[in-house]
């Protein structure tokens, strides 16, 4: 049976290669960070929880100490890229399309044909495993087609990875935070508090509080990802899913999108809202946010309606 461990071996190998390439450039912080992440993927299932915990603390120490820097591996010049793009045309999009095609078509084929009876994939893990298959297939076909230098795919990947930096593990860390919240009983505490504030049994009002909370926390923190474990532990899971029996898929997915409405409204999300105003030399630093208010607010209302209808009216 193919499990996540296969995928983790693949990812571990990729991060190990990126760590080695960083060593070659004497970027010790990057090398250490990506090597620790590679160790987590390759060995995480075989070492103790305490070892994994110490590994997390070590990675955070490197990131918090400013140890990660952007890298600048050798690549093509803008002029070369212009010429190549004219020669290769729209075919350049094809390798990128291979990935979702294999993952989605593969999932459907696996689940709706007798294939699923073979038990080839670990239950519920087939899509992400097929994503890995799609990436390998896309990479192989792109290499066969474009014939880059041997190390070019790894170096181009490292250029992108180092531009993301420590943010690459932030979602995983936030999910871990959600698990610690669950362990510490944060949901039960808030559930008991909210029970006093929200009229008992008012599903719609609770949906409104959940969606507004996602948007508001995102406005304050500038990051919907950070708001998500908080609001899921506070209201989404204990009240909407457990008490009222809502559909967890809708509550999770559309709850996150309610948070994205908050991202459109906040100067804290500088990369999206403040940096473009500067890039475009706008007189008003908040000009981009001003143009987004009229979309974000009605869309937030849409999200509330979608959660209420999708997670409760259609589900029960």
């Amino acid at each position, binding site marked *: 049976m193919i499990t996540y461990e296969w995928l983790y071996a693949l990812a571990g190998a990729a991060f190990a290669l990126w760590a080695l390439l960083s060593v070659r450039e004497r970027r010790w912080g990057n090398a250490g960070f990506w090597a620790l992440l590679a160790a987590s993927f390759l060995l995480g299932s075989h070492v103790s929880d305490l070892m994994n915990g110490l590994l997390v603390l070590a990675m955070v120490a490197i*990131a918090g100490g400013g140890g990660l820097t952007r890298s600048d591996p050798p690549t093509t010049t803008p002029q070369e*890229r212009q010429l190549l793009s004219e020669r290769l045309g729209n075919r350049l999009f094809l390798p*990128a399309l291979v990935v979702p095609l294999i993952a989605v078509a593969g999932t459907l084929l696996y689940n709706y044909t007798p294939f699923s009876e073979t038990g080839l994939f670990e239950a519920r893990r087939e899509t992400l495993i097929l994503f890995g298959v799609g990436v390998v297939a896309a990479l192989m076909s792109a290499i066969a087609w474009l014939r880059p230098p041997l190390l070019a*795919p790894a170096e181009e990947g490292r250029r992108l990875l180092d531009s993301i930096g420590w943010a690459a593990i932030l979602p995983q860390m936030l999910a871990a935070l959600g698990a610690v919240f669950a362990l510490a009983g944060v949901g039960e505490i808030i559930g*008991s508090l909210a029970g006093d504030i929200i009229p008992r049994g008012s599903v719609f009002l609770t949906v409104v509080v959940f969606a507004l909370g996602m948007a508001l926390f995102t406005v304050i923190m500038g990051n919907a990802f950070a708001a998500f474990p908080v609001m899921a532990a506070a209201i989404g899971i204990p009240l909407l899913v457990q008490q009222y029996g809502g559909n967890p898929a809708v509550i999770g997915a559309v709850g996150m999108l309610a948070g994205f409405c908050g991202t459109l409204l906040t100067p804290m999300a500088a990369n999206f809202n403040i940096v473009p105003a500067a890039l475009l030399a706008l007189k008003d630093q908040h000009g981009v946010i001003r143009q987004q208010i009229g979309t974000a607010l009605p869309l937030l209302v849409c999200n509330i309606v979608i959660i209420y209808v999708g997670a409760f009216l259609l589900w029960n």
Partner: protein
Amino acid sequence: MSYWPLLGIAIVVVGFALRFNPLMVVVGAALATGVLAGFDLVAVIKALGKAFNDNRYITVTWIILPVIGLLERNGLQQRARAVIEGMRGATMGRLLVAYLALRQLTSALGMKDIGGHPQAVRPLVAPMAEAAAIKNHGDLSEEDRDKIKAMAAATDNVGLFFGEDIFFAIASILLIQGVFESAGYPMTPLQLSIWAIPTAICAFVIHGGRILAFDRRLGRARP
């Protein structure tokens, strides 16, 4: 019941708001929450290590970077620009609506780096929108020009945010999966990402409608 574990939530909110390194904020909040709930520090570090390890699949998505990087090396961004330039000649409203659709569709297919503010909005979408508006509505005040450029940037954000979650192998979808799985509700990424579609349609209708109304308003202002 003790309310002290809620301090962890406050640490996340304040830490992000004060712009501390987010990884340190999150780990600090996790350790504080666990200790305040009555666990000893080593037990909390163990729990954090186990939870981090259990959620490794969220970070797996980066293995796509060599594919994207290799395509960029061969002119992917330049090709995307050529597609956007092909929209020249349209009115400002139609141009931005077409860009919104392009950004939503490519993000939904996992190509969220096609577009973006430095790569596409500043060099291409904003100047093209401004030029199209001037062509149709005559000379515009600096205030109106700024509004057009801001609308171009807003369109990029809306297209990205409400397209990307349709792609299942993206951090936000897997984060949702991880948080719900830790709480005892296992789901698949496709089960979640399919629910991004209704909001994506609403976003296209609302923002597209606002763009067209904005274009009409500019026309009425100077007949």
